[in-house]
């Protein structure tokens, strides 16, 4: 079913998105003068509304580059990528990739990875609820069986690997406390999880995200450990387990054979460039 040919919503949208185009045919202001300023209200609503949505979604990125730069960058994104559904909390799934290729942001090479981290935080916020495994249950596990155990992770769990200290950057900007210069000479691996209502962001020891991804894939702790040590010979297993327990990432741990083709949603599969 389509409407009458004299109302072409496609042409209306083209003019909405391209400020170089004149207002579409068939519309009037009240006074017979060109309706450009009136049409511009819709143009502005579309653009500003979506830029605001991105600003809300990526607050640390906005702090890092300043409001003016962020809004200019977000406008470029909006022109190229409109939301695909009316659920604005899903908007911005391509923002980190866009930022990584956005020439004027080259001076902040970590910006795209911070955008990935913020995207994961937003995903975790809206993710399915699930009760994490109580500490008591974890303590009750026989330590000698852990290597053969598998785990189900919280549906909100994501890991992000970066060449830059993204967790430290994120924390500084969340707290506004430590404003000493930040050394950018090391990478960090971030774990994002929302065990109850608050989203946790934690740094994992290097190799930790490979460890988590292996567990997500249904591998045993032993296999996950192998995956991590292949990347980092001196992988800190104890530190990693400690961070995962504190963050409450486990829903269950069971001493059973490896699950094949685990059906759980995988963690955000992203490695920093």
């Amino acid at each position, binding site marked *: 079913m389509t409407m009458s040919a004299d109302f072409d919503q496609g042409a209306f949208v083209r003019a909405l998105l391209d400020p170089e185009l004149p207002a579409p045919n068939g519309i009037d202001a009240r006074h017979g003068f060109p309706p450009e300023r009136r049409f511009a209200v819709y143009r502005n609503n579309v653009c500003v509304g979506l830029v605001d949505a991105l600003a809300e979604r990526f607050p640390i990125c906005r702090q890092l580059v300043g409001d003016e730069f962020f809004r200019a960058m977000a406008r470029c994104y909006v022109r190229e990528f409109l939301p695909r559904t*009316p659920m604005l909390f899903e908007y911005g799934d391509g923002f980190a990739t866009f930022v990584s290729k956005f020439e004027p942001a080259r001076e902040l090479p970590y910006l795209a990875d911070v955008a990935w981290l913020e995207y994961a935080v937003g995903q975790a916020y809206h993710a399915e609820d699930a009760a994490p495994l109580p500490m008591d249950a974890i303590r009750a596990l026989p330590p000698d069986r852990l290597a053969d155990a598998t785990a189900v992770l919280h549906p909100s769990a994501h890991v992000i690997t970066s060449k830059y200290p993204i967790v430290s950057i994120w924390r500084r900007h969340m707290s506004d406390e430590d404003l000493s210069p930040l050394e950018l000479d090391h990478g960090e691996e971030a774990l994002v999880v929302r065990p109850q209502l608050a989203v946790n962001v934690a740094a994992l020891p290097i190799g930790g995200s490979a460890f988590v991804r292996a567990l997500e894939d249904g591998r045993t702790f032993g296999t996950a450990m192998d995956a991590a040590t292949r990347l980092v010979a001196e992988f800190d297993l104890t530190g990693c387990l400690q961070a995962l327990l504190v963050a409450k990432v486990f829903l269950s741990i069971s001493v059973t054979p490896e699950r094949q083709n685990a059906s759980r949603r995988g963690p955000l599969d992203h490695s920093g460039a």
Partner: protein
Amino acid sequence: METRSAPEPNRARVASSLPARAGLGFKSAHFSDIEASAPGIGFFEIHAENYMGAGGPPHAQLTRLRRDFPLSIHGVGLSIGGAGRLDRDHLRRVKSVVERYEPAAFSEHLAWSTQGARFLNDLLPLPYNAATLAHVAAHVDEIQAALGRPILLENPAAYLRFRSSDYSEIEFLREIVRRAGCRLLLDVTNAYVSATNLGFSAEDYIDAFPMLYVEEIHLAGYAEDSDEIGDPLLIDAHCAPIQKEVWRLYDRALARRGPVATLIEWDNEIPPWPLLSAQAARAERFLKKRPLASEDRAESEALHDDVG
């Protein structure tokens, strides 16, 4: 929510069980204020699209809110005036939110917001003619069939008009109500904004509005601008206290309608809770000084509708 199997006409169903009181758009920033003060707010309204995630704080807060207050769910993404067919996936999502929270009312807009697979995040205008009428009525029908209840359709804020419009907005709304059996949400601010922008009388609009079918009113603060020849250009910005012109029109609408659920919309530059709740208290004062709806007027209007 009412359940029914017989395909009785939507006209006979209750569209809204919202109390004839002032309500507020719910903002998570106010959640702790609301919990702490258990305020005398008549109802809360939420945008359906913000509660379509799987879980997390939005659902935890809304579940709590729903326990303590009547709830109105307002859709912004069904694109009822869209040229294509309705997005069935989105309609399913709306249905699932409505089924989960069983709101006292569900409302949407006489506007479009989606084109193809692109969501434009604004309520865009459409011409009012025979083609769009058939189209919008069919969309309203489809939504009501999916939700199993009549919806409230809201009049938009207009910044320009279409040469291909053959109906006035009120004629158009009246006809949609007649064909689809939906009810109306009268946005008084939109009426004032459109009247100023398009040069018609807001008072005449309120006086002619099919008030019998109005089951909710929206009030919001507008922003003022001007166009290229210096004419006023008002913008439905939802970012300010309600202006006196809007309160005056609201009172005029209540004189015809009698007390009815009234929402204060303030979605941008969200104010502190005391300022927002003071706006609701002001609307309550207007509601309280109005007698119950004038049945005589309602009946004569219904008669007029049936013969017209």
